[in-house]
């Protein structure tokens, strides 16, 4: 029997049960055969797959969030000019001066050498050894700008469109718009670091959308989903017995309230949870993957093990029909010692990401899967150099590099540009809301139609509407 991971309706506080919910709720008492046929006739649960609004280039999305703000200048956007200005004093005038800029500031060059890779001649810094081999799969975008200079607000904006938090994350919007293929798993799964990013789980919250579209964090340590297993000492048979008693009491109660469909929904939910308890550990078990695959992703090697596991799991989840998977890595907030800090960070993700692209491609999944790599902002060409010679870079909302792969993006191209110091985007400049509109478009969604009535107004990911960045689309 196929039912949704979150099979019941949301947003019930202010409206009456709908016909669909009522019928759906009858499922258990009619048995699974009847349920299946009923569901076939009616629309299924909230996560049931839906047709795209516009022709889709991609079906799934893997979103690689490099939390902390990766430096475009030290990754993909070389600035030879900084060699010339290295350690020369830098001054920024004007109103937007913040305390970050107290004290003297200097231009700093990138500690890394750059080279061009692939047919497309994509620029990458020296630590990107593996990604360089799949350079032609990537579409770089250097024109994006955000509003906020602080981590959590910039993270909220990149993830949810609204920098003050509390709005639905892009993964929630996508699952709201498209549903998910696999009804036994959440449609939007997040693989966070052991420590959550600044702003916490609101970065993958459902905001005002129904709770079914919330990102479910699969935790890398401890129980993958909170309280997935009963307390110690309670065996599955023991729990089954408890569930049976619960079923009996609930059935009697439901008989007395035959029209109250929420009751049945809640009963279904217990059965589904019991099945999930059995299944999730299997889904996330990577041990059965062959040694070659593990090696490809860098699993077992100190530097790459953690992110390699996430990338491999992401591939498995997409294969299982999960709509949107977001991976966190960080923190990329290298205010000092950028050579060491960014060097280590890049080496930690380089091989796993390249493996993910290669693996998806060889499985024929890359065309249907949009991969996005970004942080919440870029970094400055200047620094206070408080660590002596071990300089770093500070937050820069006006320039950054984002790249995409697969899923209908314009692979093998670099779109947009920043100025000669990497301070500000100057070509194909777009606010992040346009990037959001573009990502939705690639997934077959129209931001202007993907709206939700809340608090007396129709709301959308881009907040106020935006435009598709056509150049990013193949």
């Amino acid at each position: 029997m196929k039912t949704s991971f979150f099979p019941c309706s949301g947003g019930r506080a202010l409206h009456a049960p709908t016909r669909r919910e009522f019928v759906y709720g009858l499922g258990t008492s009619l048995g699974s055969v009847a349920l299946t046929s009923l569901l076939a006739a009616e629309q299924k649960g909230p996560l049931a797959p839906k047709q795209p609004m516009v022709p889709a280039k991609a079906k799934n999305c893997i979103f690689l969030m490099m939390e902390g703000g990766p430096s475009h200048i030290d990754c993909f956007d070389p600035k030879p000019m900084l060699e010339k200005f290295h350690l020369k004093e830098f001054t920024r005038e004007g109103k937007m001066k913040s305390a970050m800029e107290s004290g003297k500031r200097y231009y700093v060059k990138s500690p890394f050498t750059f080279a061009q890779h692939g047919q497309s001649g994509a620029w990458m810094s020296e630590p990107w050894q593996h990604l360089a081999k799949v350079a032609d799969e990537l579409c770089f975008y250097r024109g994006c700008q955000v509003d906020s200079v602080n981590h959590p607000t910039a993270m909220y904006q990149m993830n949810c469109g609204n920098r003050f938090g509390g709005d639905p994350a892009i993964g929630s919007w996508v699952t709201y718009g498209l549903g998910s293929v696999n009804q036994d798993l959440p449609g939007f799964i997040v693989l966070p670091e052991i420590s959550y990013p600044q702003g916490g789980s609101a970065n993958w919250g459902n905001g005002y959308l129904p709770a079914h579209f919330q990102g479910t964090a699969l935790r890398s340590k401890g129980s993958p989903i909170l309280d997935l297993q009963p307390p110690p000492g309670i065996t599955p048979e023991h729990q089954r017995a408890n569930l049976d008693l619960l079923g009996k009491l609930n059935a009697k109660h439901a008989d007395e309230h035959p029209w109250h469909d929420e009751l049945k929904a809640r009963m279904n939910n217990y059965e589904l949870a019991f099945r999930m308890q059995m299944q999730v550990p299997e889904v996330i078990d990577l041990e059965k993957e062959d040694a070659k695959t593990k090696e490809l992703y860098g699993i077992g090697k100190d530097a790459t093990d953690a992110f390699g596991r996430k990338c491999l799991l992401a591939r498995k989840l997409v294969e299982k029909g999960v709509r949107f998977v977001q991976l966190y890595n960080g923190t990329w907030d290298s205010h000092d010692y950028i050579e060491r800090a960014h060097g280590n960070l890049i080496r930690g993700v380089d091989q796993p990401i390249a493996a993910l692209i290669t693996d998806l491609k060889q499985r024929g999944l890359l065309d249907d899967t949009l991969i996005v790599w970004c942080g919440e902002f870029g970094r400055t060409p200047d620094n206070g150099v408080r660590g002596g010679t071990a300089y770093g870079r500070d937050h820069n909302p006006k320039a950054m590099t984002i790249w995409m792969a697969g899923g209908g993006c314009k692979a093998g191209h670099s779109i947009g540009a920043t100025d000669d110091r990497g301070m500000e985007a100057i070509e194909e400049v777009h606010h992040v809301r346009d990037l959001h509109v573009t990502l939705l478009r690639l997934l077959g969604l129209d931001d202007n139609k993907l709206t939700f009535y809340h608090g007396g107004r129709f709301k959308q990911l881009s907040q106020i509407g935006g435009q598709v960045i056509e150049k990013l689309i193949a």
Partner: protein
Amino acid sequence: MAPRVIFLLLAASALQAEDAESLFVRRVWPLFQEKCLACHGNDEKKIKADYDMRTLESAIKGGESGVKALVPGKPDESPLYLASTRKHDDWEPMPPKEADQLKSEQLAWIKEWIAGGAPWPDEAKRNAIAKASADKWSAEDGITVKVKGALTPEWANRRYKPESLWGYQPVKKPVLSAQSSVHPVDALLAVKEPAPEADARTLIRRATFDLTGLPPTPEEVAAFESDWSDVSDRSDAWLRLINRLLESPHYGERMARHWLDVVRYADSSGFANDYERGNAWRYRDYVVRSFNADKPFDQFIVAQIAGDEMQESDAGTPARKDAASAGKSARITPDSELLIATGFLRMGPWELTGMEVAKVARQRFLDDVTNSVGETFLAHSLQCARCHDHKFDPVPTHDYYSMQACFATTQLTEREAPFLKSENTSGFEEKKYLEARRAEHLAVLKALDEKLLRNASKWLAEKKIDPAKWNAAVAQAKQGGGKNAKKGFSDVFGAARQILTKQGLPEDQYPPKLVGFEPQDFGNERVARKGLERLKWEMERYEPYAFSVYNGVTIPMVNVYQPLRMPGDRMKNGELEQTAILGGGDPFSPTTKVKPGVLSATSQISNLEFQIAEGVEGRRTALAKWIASKNNPLTTRTIVNRLWLWHFGQAIAGNPNNFGSTGKKPTHPELLDFLAATLVEKGWSVKEMHRLIMTSAAYRRTSFPTRSKPDELENSSYVTFTPRRLMAEELRDAMLSITGELNPTLGCIPNRPEINIEVAMQPRMVMGTFAAAWVPNPLPQQRHRRSLYALKIRGLRDPFMEVFNEPAPDFSCEAREVSTVTPQVFSLFNGQASYDRALALANRVLKEKAADPISRVFELTFGRKPAADEKAACTTHWQQMEVKQAQTSFSKPKQPLEVRREAVEENTGEKFSFQEKLPGYADFVPDLQPADCDAKTRALADVCLVLLNSNEFAYLY
């Protein structure tokens, strides 16, 4: 016949030409303003697709497609029209947003106007036409609203359908027949074929949860059932019950929970640092006290907006009136109660980090408080008018900034406010755990300082530099105590460097900053230093300071890393803010200056006058008095609408934070007005409103429909009472209540119940470090306070609360969502907390030596006895589980005294780890554990767990 037909056509088209012109003025041009010009002309720099619609010429010329967009006389060849139809293959639908699409009537206007030759009179002629036709048009199209300072004349002359202005209309109390014995609420609901009254048990359960958020005890149920059985006395019995519940101190807690949802209460600042707001709890308790005392709602409003401007309140103990006599200041310090009340103004998330521009952060506060006042008290989301005149409602940007000007002199402060007798100040001894953490951080910093000194010697030796000067500087630094006075921790190394720097020694002659630091050292130093900073905020809990505001100039700041104390002189060293309309909402683009004011539309529609002084003091008092005026229809309707929602699970006007034209219209406008008028008549007594609402037949109806047609059971019909799932807090509090574990004490510093241990220990990134782990209070009675009192950290939510739809405190929550999702099962069926409650319930019942334990469990959980089959099923299960439980052994869980944190150090990008000590766990007394109980108790706990998960427990009928 033919010539005649031609003549008619000619006449018709001549007529059209004339009509088309006024059609343009009356319909088309306003439509362009509303739907098109935002992207096609108003902002010259940002014209989309190069298509400018400000003049006929440019409208004809078209945009980047190069095709003429408008062909006068030929709508079907005019892309302007074709795009608007949204059905043409070649033209993108316009306006792009689905929600903005033109109605067929609007499309017809454009079509007719183009067909009529697309005349485009200039502004002078437009005004002349509009003036000449004013009377005719307003009779047909609705009314214009007089507002102040609209950005364009078109917006100012916009017409509103009277029904979209319902919220502004003066409250009109419906006249009800004086003789009728029908309750006024029922008379106004006018339900046909209502369901019968619910039974006594259902009613007391409904009323008790609604007014206290707790279940009735079996004894209370029995007493009420007996009262109710006297049919002649039912009305009195019901009123006695309501009055008893309204007098319960838990009433205030329940109302506070609702109110704090609206105002977004939390104990932390949110964003990057998410610092604790150590004294926010005093505001939370103030709200509880206010509802319990039935403080007139108008006074409640004024205190929250302007308490600090008032002199003394009727509640609490007046404090420090001696200031004036001591000659310090002519000002009389308002009492603590009033200072605490203004915490409302600061409930939104806010911080100023060193990364941010101070002016931007200041503007964030101003925007937040303006919108919050609008949503909370006036059911108006004002933020829409921040950048442009409101798209749907008569709120010009000018109004937005006028209201904001009321806060231009409002400054944030944690200010002195002695504790009141009415505040619960127990439990401050927990401070010792924070002291322990503080000592730990200081010790780490001292050890690192010593390490730096050792590294320094090594460095000097390696460089073959004579250490004499360095040693002398170190000795000198040590004499000075070695403490960095500003930072408050040991820093001999830094002090010694400073001495040599001052002596002018070349930099290469003494050790550099952080000499020889390893990745681990960077991490440890940062964690300890930031830890001390964070503790300053947590220590505020025990200090007699209020989370409050004062009036004065805006003092320049670069960051806020510790509580803000009042400045010596409020008027010195800063800028007296002059509010201006901000172009695009940007604080660096002030345009027209504005004076403090209110929603200007109310002076015409609601006949509401106002006057706001422009001085530094008193602006908020004037604003608050305008809001709390008995004639302000927005205010009175807003609160009674909320009260209705809190009883029926649905509001009369479906968006309690938005009475604007896009919000849902009231289903029963007369009822809403009746309630609003009655509130004022009853001296703004909220308790009177509960009595009024709850004595209606509608409130007492059964939730069992008599007819079995679900489609007809619209909630808003009030045919039956709509059942609801318990709120997250009710679920937890009810469980604690029936196990007998609930500590019913009112008010306190925030407590910390046990939350999912993985979340409690989860490392949490905040600016530059980790936030401290969640360590529960040591004693069960400290942990088992009502959920209202649990520490609410924006960046760390209790997963149990979260999955059961507790709203995040980022936005005002006008009504809670109820969804049924799988993680709820994991929390309630698998989670430690609910298992602990099940065990405690089993233990309680067996300890009581109840004759019939299963019946007792049913009574406590559901307020009824089990039916025979239920009892049989539960008894069998109990016995079977006892067999299973007898084969299982349990060990006592150990509490972690420290936790290892692993992270990537931001300076070095390398992994590092450290031990976080958890001194709070040293004295931890766990709840009753399986290991403490025999198999019989544990088996009964299985039955209890099932009951706590049942639908009957989770739903209120």
